[in-house]
């Protein structure tokens, strides 16, 4: 049996080769064989007494058609699949060449759909799917403390040390923080983003420098001469890729000399945008305090330890610490999540939403193409019928059409990838950089595979329905028709209508989604921000922490005041003030307070953001005084300590409205028991973001509190364009200290940047919805044009019988309107399904916002009427005589 099998396989393989390579011989052999059969049969018939001609005719009838028998025989041959596939491909090419215009239109529509889907997927791929570029990246975890309210917060150094020494789940654990600094190599200076890290930081990422080494244990000791690792780009930029960079000295924070001990590889970008890494011990700020939550923590799990176990492990330690140190500022728990999730988590829902939206657009594109092919399939009914009559089976016809679709999809897929590549170059300018890893977006292998799958999938989508309809033609009926268009026309028209309704439904869903996002965005921007961003220049200043020039706080204050008073002298400057926290910066430094004469308030009710400002700050940013007074020059270091609070804090803590005159002590910030008198209440300045409700906040005058004086923001209110004042402001700061790094931004820019992600989402969604509506409009136009063309005769007859052109016009227009209405009705349940998902992304807008629904419906109806107008007008121009002649 096995021997038989081998023989049979070998025989089949020989036949396969013969069939492929000696095709002509095989064909002529078959032809001779069948002719000999005919001869033998007619001879037999003659022997039965028939005349030669009759004998021959009867033999032919008995054979049942030479070509059909041949075709049937060919179909059993080995390799027939490949052979006919080649034929199909060749034939598809001929079909495309015959009507290039049609296929160029179809292929470019498809390329557009595949292209934007691929472009968006490449973002999703880079941000959400691709593993972080570190060995065993799946084992890298990110750890945070969890505060009383259940929110994540940064980790204090002593807590980190306990986690590190007591946990069993981690191979390595390291703390890090990031900050800005000037860096100078004696020749040039610039402001860079840098990280301070504890031991094992680089081991956690399994990454080593390309040149040099990481920090030694000795270098992590406080008081050791500091050393730094630099990024590849800093090495290229500042050191011109010099190989002898090791051992060179650079100055950080305007004066601390540090030795370069290594260069990190180009792909290493953690924490994001770091150009420099130094030891946490260099800064040595708040490393002893359990309540100074200054660090973030990463860790590498031991092999085989799941994230959940590590969560249990570290959570247990955190809860034990809390039991020992029950203060409000001690985290009550810990959270351990994958680093990848930490980085991509915030943007995941919106990226997935955009991917879904672009998927809708692709579906609409496919439906449109399906419709075009359907109409074309009807026109080709005669051709297909003839091929069927010549012995092509239905499967063969469907396959022929499928090959055409696939060829179309491949061509469009290639064009789509090129389009995506091009789109990405534009998208890179639009994507907010706040999305982690967005700079790594490229078209890589995964994206290409995705594009290929999308192309094949869409060819199935747009190819299958027309293929089935077109292949189901009745040979006799079709060939009998003088014009071949009637048979399949009715059926394909119904399917076409269905397709159009479904694409209108998809467009409607996208329109609603976009409408809601737009409304939400508008709501967000309409929020009272509590400040006036016009004509305000801000400058972030990082004052040297340890610089000899700046060692004592009173010195710093005097320099601040000197800088501000000189800026105030510039013509056009109204106010120059300082704040520890800019509006919308998302910078939350909050602390616990006690009210004099009150028992401690429960939990976080006695918790407020703590800001240090100069007296003019509120005037500079145009924040209204609600009650009491603002700071003045009389609130000096030796005067009575005062505080200004915002309305949120006033309402929260003093619901009876008697805030003024009470005295509060922020024990988180002042070790000494200093009660400050509440002298004023100001409007809520949105400091976190426009989306979140304003936090309770307290403002203290910088003369009375020296905390945070190393990092501050200059706020300059001017007449005219604020950017124009930047050079003068920089000169004034530079005259005090060349090494102070300054970053300028207008308050207007900051406001825009704070909503850049929502802006991006809304803009992208808007683009997709716009495409969807245009495509749906084209779909309606296509189907109605086709309808008008198909029913010319009917229209002609109606007009001959006295129907006026207004009736005809109204008839076609109402079809367009009906398609829009049916689509909207079909889309509604889909919206109901996704409304809940959407509501988490909406701000101050209900997912069933009536305005959006009415707006989208009216808009869709208008588009439908607009796209039916041209075909409708064409219908009214039908001349009864012409229409009948056409038949």
């Amino acid at each position, binding site marked *: *049996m096995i021997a*038989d099998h081998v*023989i*049979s396989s*070998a*025989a*089949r393989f020989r*036949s396969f080769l013969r069939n492929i390579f000696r095709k002509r011989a095989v064909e002529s*052999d*078959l032809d*001779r*064989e*069948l002719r*000999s*059969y005919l*001869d*033998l*049969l007619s*001879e*037999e018939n003659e022997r039965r007494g028939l005349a030669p001609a009759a004998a021959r005719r009867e033999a032919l009838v*008995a*054979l*049942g058609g030479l070509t*059909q*028998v041949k075709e*049937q*025989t060919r*179909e*059993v*041959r*080995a390799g027939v699949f490949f052979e006919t596939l080649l034929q199909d491909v060749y034939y598809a090419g001929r079909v495309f060449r015959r009507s290039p215009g049609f296929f160029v239109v179809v292929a470019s529509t498809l390329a557009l759909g595949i292209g934007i889907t691929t472009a968006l997927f490449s973002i999703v791929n880079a941000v959400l799917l691709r593993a972080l570029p570190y060995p065993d990246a799946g084992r890298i975890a990110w750890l945070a403390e969890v505060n009383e309210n259940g929110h994540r917060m940064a980790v204090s150094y002593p807590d980190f040390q306990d986690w590190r020494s007591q946990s069993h789940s981690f191979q390595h654990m390291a703390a890090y923080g990031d900050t800005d600094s000037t860096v100078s190599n004696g020749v040039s200076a610039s402001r860079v983003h840098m990280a301070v890290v504890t031991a094992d930081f680089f081991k956690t990422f399994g990454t080593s420098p390309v040149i040099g080494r990481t920090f030694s244990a000795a270098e992590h000791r406080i008081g050791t001469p500091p050393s730094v690792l630099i990024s590849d780009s800093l090495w290229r930029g500042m050191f011109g890729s010099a190989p002898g960079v090791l051992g060179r000295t650079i100055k950080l924070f305007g004066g601390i000399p540090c030795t370069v001990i290594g260069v990190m590889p180009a792909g290493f970008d953690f924490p994001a945008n770091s150009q420099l890494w130094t030891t946490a011990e260099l800064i040595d700020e708040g490393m002893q305090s359990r309540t100074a939550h200054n660090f973030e923590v990463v860790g590498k799990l031991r092999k085989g330890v799941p994230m959940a176990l590590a969560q249990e492990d570290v959570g247990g330690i955190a809860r034990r610490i809390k039991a020992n140190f029950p203060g409000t500022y001690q985290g009550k728990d810990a959270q351990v999540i994958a680093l990848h999730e930490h980085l991509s988590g915030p943007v995941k829902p919106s990226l997935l939403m955009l991917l879904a939206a672009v998927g809708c657009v692709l579906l609409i594109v496919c439906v449109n193409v399906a419709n075009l092919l359907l109409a074309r399939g009807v026109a080709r009914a005669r051709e297909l019928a003839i091929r069927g009559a010549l012995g092509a089976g239905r499967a063969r016809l469907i396959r022929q059409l499928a090959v055409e679709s696939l060829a179309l999809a491949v061509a469009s897929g290639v064009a789509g990838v090129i389009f995506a590549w091009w789109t990405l170059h534009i998208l890179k300018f639009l994507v907010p950089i706040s999305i982690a890893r967005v700079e790594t977006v490229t078209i890589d292998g995964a994206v290409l595979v995705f594009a290929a799958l999308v192309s094949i999938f869409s060819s199935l989508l747009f190819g299958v329905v027309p293929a089935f309809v077109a292949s189901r033609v009745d040979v006799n009926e079709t060939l009998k028709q003088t014009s071949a268009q009637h048979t399949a026309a009715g059926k394909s028209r119904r399917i076409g209508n269905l397709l159009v309704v479904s694409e209108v439904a998809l467009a409607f869903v996208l329109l609603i989604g976009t409408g809601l996002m737009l409304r939400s965005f508008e709501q967000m921007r309409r929020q009272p921000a509590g400040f006036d961003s016009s004509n305000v220049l801000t400058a972030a200043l990082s004052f040297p922490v340890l610089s000899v020039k700046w060692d004592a706080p009173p010195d710093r204050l005097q320099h601040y005041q000197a800088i501000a008073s000189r800026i105030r002298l510039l013509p056009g400057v109204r106010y120059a003030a300082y704040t520890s926290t800019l509006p919308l910066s998302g910078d939350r430094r909050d602390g616990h307070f006690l009210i004099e004469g009150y028992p401690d308030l429960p939990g976080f009710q006695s918790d407020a953001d703590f800001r240090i400002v100069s007296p003019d700050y509120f005037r500079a940013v145009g924040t209204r005084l609600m009650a009491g007074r603002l700071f003045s020059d009389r609130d000096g270091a030796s005067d009575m300590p005062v505080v200004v609070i915002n309305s949120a804090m006033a309402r929260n803590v003093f619901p009876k409205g008697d805030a003024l005159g009470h005295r509060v002590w922020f024990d988180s910030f002042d070790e000494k028991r200093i009660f400050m008198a509440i002298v004023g209440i100001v409007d809520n300045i949105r400091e976190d973001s426009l989306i979140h409700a304003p936090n309770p906040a307290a403002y203290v005058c910088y003369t009375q509190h020296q905390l945070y004086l190393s990092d501050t923001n200059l706020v300059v209110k001017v007449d005219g364009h604020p950017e124009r004042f930047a050079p003068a402001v920089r000169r004034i700061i530079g005259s005090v200290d060349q090494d102070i790094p300054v970053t300028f931004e207008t308050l207007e820019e900051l406001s825009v940047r704070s909503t850049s992600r929502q802006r991006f989402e809304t803009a992208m969604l808007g683009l997709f919805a716009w495409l969807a509506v245009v495509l749906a409009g084209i779909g309606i136009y296509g189907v109605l044009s086709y309808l008008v063309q198909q029913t010319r005769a009917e229209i002609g007859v109606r007009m001959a019988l006295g129907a006026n052109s207004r009736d005809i016009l109204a008839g076609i227009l109402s079809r367009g309107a009906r398609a829009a209405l049916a689509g909207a009705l079909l889309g509604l349940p889909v919206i109901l399904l996704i409304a809940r998902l959407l509501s988490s992304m909406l701000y101050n807008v209900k997912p069933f916002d009536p305005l959006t629904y009415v707006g989208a419906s009216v808009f869709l109806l208008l588009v439908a009427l607009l796209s039916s107008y041209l075909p409708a007008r064409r219908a009214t121009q039908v001349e009864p005589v012409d229409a009948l002649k056409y038949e």
Partner: protein
Amino acid sequence: MPHANLLQGTLDLLILKSLTLGEMHGLGISRRIAQITAGTFDVKPGSLFPALHRMEEAGWLSSAWGESENNRRAKFYKLTRAGQRQLQTEATEWNRISLAIAAALGAG
């Protein structure tokens, strides 16, 4: 003309059986099948030629051009060794099935 539904396996079996007496051309095979099945099976060219070509590719039949009884050129098919074995296998299988079917139909 009686029209029995020919399963593919049945047709193969009949063709193999008809060739046990010696080589034969296509028309001869279809006549022979009609004869040995007492006219129950009338194999049409549209089924016959695909089957012959398929079986030849499977190595059960071999073919050669020759002269017919009236000196006409015709393509003659004959059983190969593998074809004879295939006939045995299929005949055994067929007997088993027909017995089983007969038993099934005979069952109360």
